[in-house]
């Protein structure tokens, strides 16, 4: 695995973990502050913003770890050739979908930049929308790497020496 990629994975996990922890801390603080009669209404806003980022980063982590649930009753019973073909088909369709997600997400972040986040003046909702763009890019990278690994395993690509 190239060093830059390994670094990215580490960074992704650290960021995702940070977002989740901050989410917990913010919601907890918000509840306690409200009980002390000093409601801090921004804690909820910030927590949902982190929720979006945490969600899509975690989605990539789950996809890379093959933890996204699938129903493989039929593919498991297929002969070797068709099963591999189905695998390629799935990855290709997913890649196309993710390209769309990235494009539409980026476009939406741009055109709706005037939309304010939770009505807070000067804070754009695009900061939230961009989470799906970044998440989409990571998911696409993971999908392409899965595709490359499958191609190598089937002998369509030269095996990587370092692996």
């Amino acid at each position: 695995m190239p060093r830059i990629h390994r670094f990215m994975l580490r960074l992704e996990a650290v960021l995702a973990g940070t977002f989740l922890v901050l989410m917990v801390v913010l919601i907890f603080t918000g509840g306690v502050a409200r009980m002390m009669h000093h409601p801090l209404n921004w804690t909820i806003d910030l927590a949902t913003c982190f929720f979006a980022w945490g969600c899509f980063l975690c989605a990539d982590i789950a996809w890379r770890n093959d933890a996204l649930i699938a129903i493989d009753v039929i593919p498991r019973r297929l002969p070797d050739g068709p099963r591999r073909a189905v695998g390629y088909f799935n990855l290709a369709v997913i890649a196309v979908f993710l390209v769309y997600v990235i494009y539409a997400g980026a476009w939406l972040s741009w055109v709706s930049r005037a939309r304010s986040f939770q009505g807070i003046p000067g804070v754009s909702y695009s900061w939230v929308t961009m989470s799906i763009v970044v998440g989409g890019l990571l998911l696409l990278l993971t999908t392409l790497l899965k595709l490359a690994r499958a191609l190598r395993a089937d002998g369509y690509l030269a095996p990587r020496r370092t692996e």
Partner: protein
Amino acid sequence: MLLVVVAFAILLALGMPVAFAIAISGALFFLQHPELPFTIPVQVTVSQTQNFALLAVPLFIIAGNIMNRSGITGRLLDLASVLTGRLKGGLAQVSLALSALMGGVSGSAIADAAMQARMLGRPMVERGFTPGFAAGALAYGAVLTPIIPPGIGMILYGTIGQVSIGRLFAAGFVPALLLWAGLSFAVWLTARRRGYLPERDRRPTLKEGALALRGGIWALLFPVFLLFGLRMGVFTPSEIGAFAVFYGAVIGVFVYRELKTKGALEALEASLTDVGSVMFLIALSAIFSYGIVLERVPETVSGWILGVTENLAGVMVLVATFVLVVGFFVDATVLIIMLTPIFLPLVRQLGGDPVHFGIVFIVAATIGNFTPPVGAAMYAVCSILKVPVGEYTRESAPLLLAVTVVTLMLIFIPQAVLFVPNLIFNR
């Protein structure tokens, strides 16, 4: 919409991850509707992550993982072993009891199932349960969570249908007890038939019992403390998961002294994958439901139902069946929002009681979360326990049968639901 459903079935059969299958087939609807902005699928997906009620799901997942490392789970298991060690299906019974306790705390079946899968899943498999049956018990147990008040589902139903929320809350208790009894019986029967060995071969001594109780007291107090936090007004139902994480961490660090930095980081790392697999699916499902709303599918179905029968119990059976089949959306909340205004007038028109129907409806919508081919709680538990959906379906059949029988009872014996609210509200 037909194209969308067919495409979804095909992609699912081809073994594509459910999250992507839902999103990609749902996106086909927008290809058929070029007048809609092409950004909507992305926009509604992001919006799901801004839904404050859904925040409970990752919070309870993290709480489950923290409790595993803080020593709470282990002590809970010791205690369970002492209490139910001679009973067949002990741990599954513990999981049902925990769901009932959690019912007084959280209103989310998905959050409860995910948390318990993390806490009790592995120990159950280690004690000889088949993974499929363990997953089934953990998922179906969560049916109790939204039925025992407070429940988001009841508040939504009451608000949309203008039904007393207090009466709905009161009406939840007896059905929850019946569901608990039904599931408990199904677990016991399965354990007996399978010959799952009891965990202990002799009666525990008094000393063993006292030790286990002392060790497990903080674990037992967990739901009590959460309830306390809720009743004292520290947290709202949407926020209580943050308190659960905090409680698990404090007990682990200061009381049991088992939670170290390494364990906390491991718990967090495990949560990343769990949150990703559960939340990504929930977020993307919004793409699919958009077309269903726009094409007014529920209204059409309501028309079919009235075409079949105009008998009140018959309509309720059909509605429950319909809700069970399509019940794969987020925590049943989408279903309740969409279907309450369609079905409730129907039931009122036929002379039904809105509280009675509400409970049946919420039970059915929640069960829809556990049933194949699509159900958010089922997917959450299966992905956390790494159980194939086919195996889950086979192994959890007795549990499905149990909740179905109870639901039918609730439909045909309205007094089972209405007895408590009538008593309390004196009407």
